[in-house]
């Protein structure tokens, strides 16, 4: 499964898809961290995620922490129901900035 990367306004949007599991999440992590290291504001689109495991969530956590230390913007968009449940289990839904969609976020600016 490949993640789809696009640029929308000030954001680099990384769209993950399918099952973000032990095989997929190291790649996703690599990608998220590399864009942040290039000083990009990163949004991770989870709308096509059917399943995300804790390694996937851990990668998001690491990304968010890196973004904060670099004073970059980081957020999750279109969080699918299965992904939301996993985030809720660790109370991370209250930690990540979560937005409905990329368009919504840019309009509100």
């Amino acid at each position, binding site marked *: 499964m490949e993640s789809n990367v696009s640029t929308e306004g000030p954001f680099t949007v990384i769209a993950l898809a399918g099952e973000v599991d032990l095989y997929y*999440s190291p790649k996703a992590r690599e990608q998220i961290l590399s864009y942040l290291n290039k000083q990009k504001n990163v949004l991770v689109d989870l709308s096509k995620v059917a399943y995300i495991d804790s390694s996937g969530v851990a990668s998001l956590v690491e990304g968010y922490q890196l973004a904060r230390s670099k004073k970059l913007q980081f957020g999750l968009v279109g969080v699918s129901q299965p992904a939301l449940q996993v985030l809720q*289990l660790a109370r991370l839904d209250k930690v990540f900035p979560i937005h409905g969609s990329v368009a919504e976020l840019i309009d509100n600016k």
Partner: protein
Amino acid sequence: MDERAPSEAVIEIENLVAHYGDRQILNGVSLTVEKGEIMVIMGGSGSGKSTLLRHLLGLKKPTSGSIRLLGKDITKISKKEIYQLRRDMGVAFQGGALFGSMTVGENVQLPLREHTKLDEKTMQIMARMKLEVMNLAGFEDLMPSELSGGMVKRAALARAVIMDPKLLFFDEPSAGLDPVVSAELDELILRLRNAMNMTIVVVTHELESAFKIADRITMLDLGNILITDTVENVRNSDIERVQNMLNRRPREVDVDTEAYLRRLTGQKH
């Protein structure tokens, strides 16, 4: 691919016969557990519930019968396939079985270290996340001997679910805990199932906890299944032994005069 398709069996036990030494412990047990279901296996000591669990975990080879976990018959598959299957199984043991020489955090991370090549940082975050879920935040650097009984069980549960298994086994979650702590664990089990859609098998002798968490209950007695049914139907069952167990009545022992006398006098034949 519908994740919540009805009647997708995750565990299928067929006609399982098991011995301990010369003694037959399970006399042909058959049981099916559906995906996403919480199945509670109950029974007094000597009912065979611990033996059944050991077989489900692939720690013992049965005399006969088959056990299919996630579609694979663990009595037949190769060691390598069992090793693969273990990534999808989590087990929380009765006494926690945390490794005394490692910190709580290292204990929780151990399955990741053995099975994956994830980044060190990812593993640490995953372990801390699970400890958060179990309300054990900040305890990762303690040794298991520094934890209370309830904390040990929660840490063991964190280790059991670190790989996000499809199948979770929990042996006696309430044993040795006070009612408040044990209610917390019940709550955690329900949350895990709801968030991760795990299939969970709990072995217990605590009625209260069983009624609270179970979708279905299986009652074992002397190596046979008395009943497998929903909580409601188990409560209303008119099987006498089931009611005896629910009401904690000791069982009536049938007296075979001849055999009894022989036992007392020590004659073998």
